């Protein structure tokens, strides 16, 4: 309350002290729009459904990246946990006969364990060194997948992956899979929102803002970052498993540096600071290639330019637009 009073006294703008009041005119229309957007693919045909499914899976993966980012470290090798989750769930299912859901869950846990171990080793590095190591590690994973042909199918990949089955309900149509993907996307966003309201989330924020200060207040930076890293990688692994079950085919080429760069692009353009950044980034950037399909190179030039411009002028990404507009309007 005191803060609000001070704020209202300091700001030259007549009142509207409340974030709460500022939010309400937008909340209902925004929620309606989101609902319409979410429901639209079911009425728009197979291709739109396909894009929507891919976008939702990207939301899950990029939320994972966002979680890692919010611990103060940016991973340039996010394609690695995605690949491990995909291959893990498929190989577990075909190798042990466990159902697809169980093997996906197990694969996610596996990815969590591996990334926990890896994180314990590499999270001691800061900034650029962490970036380079994650980059190198992702390449290493791709090489291993390529080379372990007897197990992973090597460059041929694994084809004819059976669709997901939950209690007799088979997810082999786009309509059904979209429901699943949408659910996963919403769940990942809710998870992030919930997490960052809790003390654990606050601690992660503190670690990201100023690690030295956080350490001095008794928080173990390394342990917190490991937790965040594990969580982020598990989300990525789940996204990978979903991709495998949807497309029905995986190969190491789908998880190369281009994929890692794509996830970072989505995060940055969507907005690194906002909890809805990943959603916006995935929504905007997944269908975009389709508009540009005739002119692939122009599309990439556009991405590159957009990255630079957003970093320069709109560090909050697309999610930062409303605030910018508000500032403009409020004047």
């Amino acid at each position, binding site marked *: 309350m005191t803060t609000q009073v001070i704020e209202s006294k300091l700001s030259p703008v007549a009142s509207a002290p409340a974030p709460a009041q500022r939010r309400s005119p937008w909340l209902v229309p925004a929620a309606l729009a989101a609902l319409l957007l979410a429901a639209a693919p079911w009425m728009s045909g197979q291709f739109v459904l396909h894009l929507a499914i891919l976008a939702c899976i990207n939301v899950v993966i990029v939320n994972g990246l966002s979680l890692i980012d919010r611990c103060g470290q*940016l991973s340039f090798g996010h394609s690695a946990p995605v690949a491990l989750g995909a291959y893990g769930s498929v190989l577990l299912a075909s190798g042990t006969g466990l159902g697809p859901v169980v093997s996906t869950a197990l694969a996610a846990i596996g990815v969590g364990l591996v990334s926990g171990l890896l994180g314990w*080793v*590499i999270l*001691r*590095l800061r*900034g*650029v*060194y962490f*970036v*380079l*190591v994650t*980059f*190198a*590690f992702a*390449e*290493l994973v791709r*090489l*291993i997948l*390529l*080379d372990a042909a007897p197990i992973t199918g090597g460059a041929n990949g694994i084809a004819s992956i059976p669709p997901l089955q939950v209690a007799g309900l088979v997810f082999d149509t786009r309509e059904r899979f979209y429901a699943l993907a949408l659910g996963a996307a919403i769940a990942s966003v809710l998870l992030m929102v919930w997490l960052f309201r809790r003390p654990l989330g606050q601690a992660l924020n503190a670690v990201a803002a100023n690690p030295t200060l956080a350490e001095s207040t008794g928080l173990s930076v390394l342990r917190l970052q490991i937790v965040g890293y594990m969580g982020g990688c598990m989300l990525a692994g789940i996204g990978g498993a979903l991709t495998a079950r949807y497309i029905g085919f995986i190969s190491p080429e789908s998880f190369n*540096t281009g994929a890692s*760069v794509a996830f*970072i*692009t989505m995060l*940055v353009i969507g907005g690194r600071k906002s909890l809805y950044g990943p959603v916006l980034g995935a929504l905007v950037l997944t269908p975009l290639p389709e508009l540009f399909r005739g002119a*692939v*190179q*122009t599309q*990439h*030039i556009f*991405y*590159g*330019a*957009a*990255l*630079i411009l957003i*970093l*320069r002028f709109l*560090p909050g990404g697309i999610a930062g637009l409303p605030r910018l507009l508000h500032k403009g309007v409020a004047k």
Partner: protein
Amino acid sequence: MDWQLLLGQATANGLVVGLLYLLMAVGFTLVFGVMRMVNFAHGEFYMLGAFAAYTLVVKLSLPFLLAVALSVVLAIVFGSLVEWLVLKPFRKDELNGMIATIGLAMILQNVALLTFGPDPVSLPPIATGASTVLGVTVANSRLYVVGFALAVLLLLYAFLRHSPVGRGLRAVVEDADIAAIHGVRARIYYPLGFGIGIGLAAIAGALMAPLFSVSPFMGQTPLLKAFMVVILGGLGSIPGAAVAGLCLGLLESYSTLFMSSSTADMLIFILVVVGMLAFPRGLIGRGEA
């Protein structure tokens, strides 16, 4: 098979490739040292250097040496401009600078794709045939490239050691704040540092162009190698990058003798990661942790 001869051949191969890595890595670490920026577009400047040489030699029929010299000058000018116009806001901003260079890389590669198309092109060889010294056979064209590369490195060394501008650059790499106190002007050194750094990449590209083919995708692998070399040698350490570059070239050459190419690649990756964790300051110990 005669192991001595084989090892000798592998050493010769490794040194030639090592020189390429050296040029890439020194430039990369120079950019980092001056601007604290991990330049993800470094490989694209290598590619642009190669295409510049290609255009000058094939389309304008200039002699090779002249084409290389021109490519370098063009690269330095272009690099300085890019730094000044695009990267200035990101000086000293490590993470955002990195992402900005990713954007830059995307733009450069796709502009090259639009201009030259995706198919590889080749330059006429600068020399034909091979020479055999002590039982080791090296292609003449590679010998020439080694010669030019050494000349470039000597020039660079002289520049950094003896010229006032070069000394200023080294000062900025060592410690930018103290250099500023001594009157070293950042406004000149940032664009210059970036320009020379990517100029080295462009030289590497131009020199290698007649040996391998030139395509808009050719920059990916040298970028990865540059990463590995500076991790080993220490980010920001020029001597570290030089030594590590040669070592990596030799290591790759020897390991390919004994095991398959992909196993060799994997082992080297693991070595690099382990090396970074064990020696955060770089094996030579002069980098920044």
